[in-house]
């Protein structure tokens, strides 16, 4: 875990050094559209500590990070941590809303498809799930804007703040995830429905409806809940593109803007926060998995 974290931080910091040529020169060149003078390059380097060797730059960045200081943006006056704190809530809001949308869609559909296995209901929902995973989410976003915002005039096309701003982005991001989760719920439900305790409940004369929704569903959801946690990375990746489509301020738009502006401290900050959040979620999911199902041995998954 700590080795992984160290590697993550090294990779995050080192990523921007794959810039072809000299980063300082490239940044200044792209910023003003003309080749900068040697003095300007030297001044930029000195200002941002780029004239030191890589290892000492990395170590001073890392020691800052450990104290909660992620550096300062090249172009804005705010520190990177201020920017992150400013944009993070918007992205979290979107991620949580998308998770809710996906569960609200996937659990009923997955259960119904497992109960009516191999009927037209099951096939239709499987085809829908296939369409869901195969659809580019930015494209779905524009289709929704086209129909819901432009034709029906129900929601604003872009921005953030109110619930009506959140609806379309959450649906856009939630559908892809819903498609994955539907399949999981279905598989897990099918497994549970064949378990002995379900047969026992049936043979005692418990009504089928109760068997499905009380006995089976509860157990089927255990693996689903943990695997949904593992999809956190998917949600974060998806949020980047969805935020751009709906012009929502968030970590995604912050990252994309910073990448284009070559605002490296901001890029490093966003990537580090994403990766750390991702590692921690996966770790928690692993723990939850073991806690919920003692049959799983630890080790292979860690």
């Amino acid at each position, binding site marked *: 875990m700590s080795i992984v974290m160290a590697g993550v931080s090294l990779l995050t910091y080192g990523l921007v050094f794959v810039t*072809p040529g000299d980063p300082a020169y490239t940044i200044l060149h792209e910023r003003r559209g003309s080749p900068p003078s040697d003095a300007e390059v030297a001044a930029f380097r000195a200002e941002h500590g780029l004239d030191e060797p890589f290892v000492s730059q990395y170590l001073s960045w890392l020691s800052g990070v450990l104290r909660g200081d992620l550096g300062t943006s090249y172009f804005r006056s705010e520190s990177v941590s201020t920017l992150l704190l400013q944009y993070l809530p918007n992205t979290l809001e979107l991620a949580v809303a998308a998770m809710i949308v996906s569960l609200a869609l996937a659990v009923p559909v997955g259960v119904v498809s497992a109960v009516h296995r191999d009927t037209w209901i099951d096939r239709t929902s499987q085809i829908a799930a296939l369409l869901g*995973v195969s*659809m*580019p989410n*930015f*494209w779905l976003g*524009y289709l929704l804007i086209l129909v819901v915002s432009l034709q029906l005039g129900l929601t604003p096309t872009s921005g953030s703040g109110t619930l009506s701003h959140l609806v379309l982005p959450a649906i856009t991001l939630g559908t892809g995830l819903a498609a994955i989760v539907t399949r999981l719920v279905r598989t897990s439900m099918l497994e549970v429905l064949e378990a002995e305790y379900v047969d026992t409940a049936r043979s005692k004369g418990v009504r089928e409806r109760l068997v499905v929704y009380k006995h089976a569903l509860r157990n089927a959801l255990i693996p689903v809940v943990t695997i949904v946690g593992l999809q956190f990375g998917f949600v974060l990746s998806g949020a980047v593109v969805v935020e751009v489509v709906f012009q929502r301020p968030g970590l995604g738009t912050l*990252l994309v803007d910073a990448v*284009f502006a070559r605002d490296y401290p901001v890029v490093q900050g966003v990537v580090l926060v994403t*990766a750390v959040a991702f590692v921690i979620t996966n770790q928690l999911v692993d723990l939850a998995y073991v806690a919920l199902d003692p049959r799983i041995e630890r080790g292979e998954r860690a």
Partner: protein
Amino acid sequence: MSERHADEHTWRSPDAVLEWLRERTRSQFAWSLRTNPGVRFGGTLVCLLAVVAVFGPLLSPYDPTAQALEARLEAPSLAHPLGTDALGRDVATRIVHGARVSLALAVAATAVRVVIGTTIGLVAGYLGGLVDAALMRLVDIQLAFPGLVLALVIAGVLGPSLRNVMIALSVVGWASYARVVRGNVLEVKDRPFVEAARLYGTPRRRIARRHLLPNVINPVVVLATMNLGTIVLTAAGLSFLGLGAQPPTPEWGTMIAGGREYLRSAPWLVTAPGIAIMATVIGFNVLGDGLRDVLDPDHLEERERRRS
């Protein structure tokens, strides 16, 4: 009657029996491959796409990049089945050329991932010990980043271009292959046939290639097929953000980005490339699902795919 009966029970040499068994499993395998609905449907879709990508551009009367400003934003018609874009270019022609770009990129990036991932997985699983521990930490580090975020930053830092997106998508994403291959190697490496090869004095490299690789290749094929679809999606996403193919290159993601300003007046500019992307990804996903049923009934790769 009795003669024929006797004939059927003619003694066969062990070699002949082995050959007969081999032939039988091979044809059974081919049969299940041919009759699997996923393989049939997905395979057909993918083959169609490949044909379109290879021969489509030869059939179109239009140039995918030549501007014709007198024919801007024309609605779909017989002359332009999918309409024209803001610079008067034929959308259908650009979509067909886009298939070349997307498929070539997906195949190239997947090939690099497969080679890197399989090699690392083989080496880690077979050598074990410190080498294994070190390589697996590398895998963990890569899996700590959401794929798109890492690819986005690499492509952005290298500078926006199609080539850099390909590089970015090649160097991320091999970790899943490494994990799957390593897991399978660990399972087979102590089996008698590997032991026998070792006792026989077969060089390690040859054991890895001739005895281990064939036993781990099936889940890799399944994972790679699924990956082709994911890469088409991710590459389109990066191009949409402006990091990949630059105008006027006909690329599906770039086309969607270019069409979004005309969402109300010319909705076909956004819809058509999206459907092209979706059809491609559906093809690879269905083919991958079908191949998994045939090649990897235990779903070894599935757990890894969920993580990536």
